[in-house]
């Protein structure tokens, strides 16, 4: 296992490999270059009439040109904002390329945003045009348009349901293109000229933060920032030209701006658009997507499909599946934990692959996928390992809209605890990417094209970058191998009496990943000098383990305090400790002699811990932990189902970790 690296130190990683030549400084310039180079190659496909219909670079260029001229005819000025909303479809991308070529900036809406959310974004971003997918999106904008006086036109590209809207403000995408086509005949060459006039420091995209704390902020993404990030990715994980990419994550999420939009132009990739959101899984399979960027929920969804289908399968198939996956899992676990694989399992793997794993990959449409990427949130280890077991190299990554992609699992390193190694930025775009971890444990970053600020929010910008470093707000730690581990949001860290900040959430989730642990209460605050925890063992899995090892036990209390069980839990705690800083490690733990129970108000009905209540109830145990006792005779009042009261009296052991 990787060792933890010392803190408060700046590391710089210079990339020593081949430095690619920077081909363009803006997206429109890159678009033009590619359209010249690959005019007759396929750039986009969409499913229509049940068949994948290709658009060549030439086709796309024409569509973009017409819409570009159309927008200009309507009166779009440089630096104005065009808002685009809807599902991922070619028109979405065309509208973006067209607006960018006019030196305008764009802002995107998630298809499921509510009218008030849309209103906020339209107002805050000073949007003058909305390009929406269909009736649903248009209706939402109509609802709030009176509050957004700057809005000049609402353009839709799916005419379905729009047959009876007689509103001068609403226009069909094709109508705009028609106007544009006429204008293009009058002043040819303007599209090319405009595209070349875009400056690297022009704002390209405003990407709104989720706004979990206060109002959403529009992060300014300049052309140079998008290209910077794309080069970072291309330098470390080169994307093959004409990689089949399924554009599924919303361009309103900065990640799709980096992948679908920018790397799409750079590689260039073939952008495939799902027919409907419901057909995505089917479409991935039809396409044999080669690069997939999905959120953890979607990856877990894929894994769930397999598990659900196998439940319906016959006993023979199930047996083969189980055996094949078991072999894959053995190899995957070793691989994701960076340990050598035993020869036995290595020898069995090709057989398992031929009989089971390859077919699962094929059924999920992952057989051609050479770059699978998960980002945005943490993924449960089981889900992550499942993909490695079936032979898909799923990689974790980390980045911030404000400063681009920062880390990713590179090469053959797939430690699922980490977010991978640091990217090196291309020197063309600025100083090398640097980071440091502040005393509070916060990740600070600078370098590359840098942080361009929040739109019209100088105070928030100042707060995020007060000293030349961009403050991510994320608490992280580095392993010995230079891989980053995400702990928590900094504001969620807790402080010990020593002044040290530790990540309770992180420790709790990692411990709960253990099959033997059901619930965990992490202890440690300003009155305590080290971290400890109380564990509610999972009676079912631990019980089964006890049976297997032929250990007799009577009650839950008896089982929880069994020497072997305590040993097993200790191993689990120590496993988590290994990825933690010295100060955050769990020094002592107790297996609770009684299960936490919603009936006794220890948990809410949705199984959330009621920390205050629990800490009061088990005060004697907590006291014993922090006074250095090795065991105590705990007495816990319990209420039985029939209303009787009783007391559970049991010797409870306090365990010290290594």
């Amino acid at each position, binding site marked *: 296992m990787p060792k933890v690296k010392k803190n408060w130190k700046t590391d710089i990683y210079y990339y020593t490999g081949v430095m690619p030549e920077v081909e363009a400084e803006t997206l429109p310039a890159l678009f033009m270059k590619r359209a010249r180079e690959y005019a007759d190659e396929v750039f986009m496909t969409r499913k229509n*009439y*049940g068949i994948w219909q290709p658009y060549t670079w030439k086709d796309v260029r024409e569509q973009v040109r017409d819409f570009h001229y159309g927008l200009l005819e309507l009166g779009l000025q440089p630096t104005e904002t065009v808002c685009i909303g809807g599902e991922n479809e070619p028109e979405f991308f065309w509208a973006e390329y067209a607006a960018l070529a006019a030196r305008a900036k764009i802002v995107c809406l998630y298809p499921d945003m509510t009218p008030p959310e849309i209103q906020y974004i339209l107002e805050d971003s000073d949007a003058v045009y909305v390009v929406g997918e269909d009736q649903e999106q248009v209706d939402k904008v109509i609802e709030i348009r009176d509050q957004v006086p700057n809005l000049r036109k609402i353009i839709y590209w799916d005419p*379905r349901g729009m*047959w009876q809207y007689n509103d001068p403000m609403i226009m069909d995408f094709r109508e705009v293109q028609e106007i544009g086509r006429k204008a293009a005949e009058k002043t040819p060459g303007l599209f090319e000229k405009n595209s070349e006039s875009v400056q690297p420091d022009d704002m390209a995209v405003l990407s709104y933060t989720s706004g979990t704390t206060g109002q959403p902020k529009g992060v300014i993404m300049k052309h140079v920032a998008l290209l910077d990030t794309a080069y970072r990715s291309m330098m470390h994980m080169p994307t093959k030209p004409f990689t089949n990419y399924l554009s599924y994550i919303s361009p309103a999420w900065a990640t799709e701006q980096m992948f679908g939009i920018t790397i799409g132009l750079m590689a260039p990739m073939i952008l495939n658009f799902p*027919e*409907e959101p419901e*057909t995505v899984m089917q479409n991935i399979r039809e396409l044999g997507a080669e690069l997939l960027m999905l959120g953890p929920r979607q990856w877990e969804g894929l894994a769930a499909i397999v598990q659900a289908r196998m439940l319906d399968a016959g006993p023979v198939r199930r047996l083969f599946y189980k055996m094949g996956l078991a072999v894959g899992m053995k190899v995957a676990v070793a691989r994701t934990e960076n340990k050598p694989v035993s020869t036995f399992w290595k020898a069995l793997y090709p057989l398992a692959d031929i009989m089971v794993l390859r077919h699962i990959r094929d059924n999920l449409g992952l057989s051609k996928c050479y770059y699978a990427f998960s980002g945005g949130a943490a993924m449960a280890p089981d889900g992550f390992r499942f993909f490695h077991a079936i032979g898909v190299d799923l990689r974790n990554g980390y980045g911030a809209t404000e400063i681009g992609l920062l880390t990713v699992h590179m090469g053959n390193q797939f430690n699922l605890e980490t977010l991978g190694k640091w990217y090196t930025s291309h020197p063309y775009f600025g100083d090398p990417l640097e980071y440091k971890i502040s005393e509070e444990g916060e990740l600070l970053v600078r370098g590359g094209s840098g942080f361009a600020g929040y739109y019209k929010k100088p105070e928030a910008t100042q707060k995020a970058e007060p000293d030349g470093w961009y403050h991510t707000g994320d608490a992280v730690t580095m392993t010995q191998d230079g891989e980053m581990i995400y702990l928590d949001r900094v504001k969620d860290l807790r402080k010990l009496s020593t002044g040290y900040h530790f990540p309770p959430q992180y420790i709790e989730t990692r411990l709960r990943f253990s099959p033997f642990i059901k619930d965990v209460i992490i202890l440690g605050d300003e009155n305590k000098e080290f971290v400890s925890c109380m564990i509610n063992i999972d009676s079912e899995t631990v019980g089964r383990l006890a049976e297997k090892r032929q250990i007799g036990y009577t009650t839950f209390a008896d089982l929880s305090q069994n020497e072997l069980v305590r040993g097993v839990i200790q191993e689990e705690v120590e496993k988590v400790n290994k990825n933690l800083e010295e100060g955050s490690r769990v020094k002592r733990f107790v297996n609770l002699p009684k299960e936490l129970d919603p009936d006794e108000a220890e948990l809410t009905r949705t199984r959330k811990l009621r920390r205050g209540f629990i800490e009061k109830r088990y005060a004697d145990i907590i006291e014993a932990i922090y006074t250095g006792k090795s065991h105590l005779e705990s007495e816990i009042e319990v209420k039985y189902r029939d209303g009787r009261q009783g007391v559970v009296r049991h010797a409870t052991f306090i365990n010290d970790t290594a």
Partner: protein
Amino acid sequence: MDTAEKKVILKVENLSLTFGKVAALSDVSLEVYDGEILSVIGPNGAGKTSLLNCLSGFYRPDRGRIAFDGQEITNMPTHKRAEAGIARTFQGIQLYLGMTALDNIMSGRHIHMRTNFIQNALYWVWSDREETDHRLVAEDIIDFLEMEAIRDRVVGSLGYGLRKRVDLGRALALEPKILIMDEPMAGMNVEEKEDMARFILDIQEAKKIPVVLVEHDMEVVTDISNRVAVLDWGFKIAEGRPEEIMRNPSVIKAYIGEE
């Protein structure tokens, strides 16, 4: 919609139908205008389905006549009516359960198929071209009814609401001049009902096909119909705009009983 200027597409005159001594329909007259949604409502046993069956040719009326698009069709057999442009969907779904949604819709194209058995057996130029043309129509319907995700699913594996949609798709594949729907919302949940209501409105708006709707759900009827006709014990007791019908005392009497 101003019905006065509209062309009458379907005209029912003094229709009567009896089963033994039971009068299912007594002297019912009705006009359907081009481009409208007409709902036929009434309590159980009012004769709604009997009327629809007369329109689509499953029953022959004892008296009266039915004219469609200026042509007398009272005694026309069902398949001729389909060719004339009358399509209907069923209350209990009548689909090919072992076939995919797409194939079910394609089956609705049969009246438009022109190639013969030999040509089809060889599956050469003519058949190939024809198949492509029909597939194009079917795909348009799939897009229209948002069935992309179930295109290749076997109908037997689909839920009830989706089967209803396939049924509607097959009816549309006839490219009808009028669509007759027998309780399209029966047995659906609220979301499925909303979807279906939207599709019916879309059919009216985009395809400009008049729809005759037999429906129990009063909310749906008042929301989407241009006009409503009310049957009770085989008699037409009222006809008019939905809001008028809801206030009509004889309609209230038929539904709720005497005050």
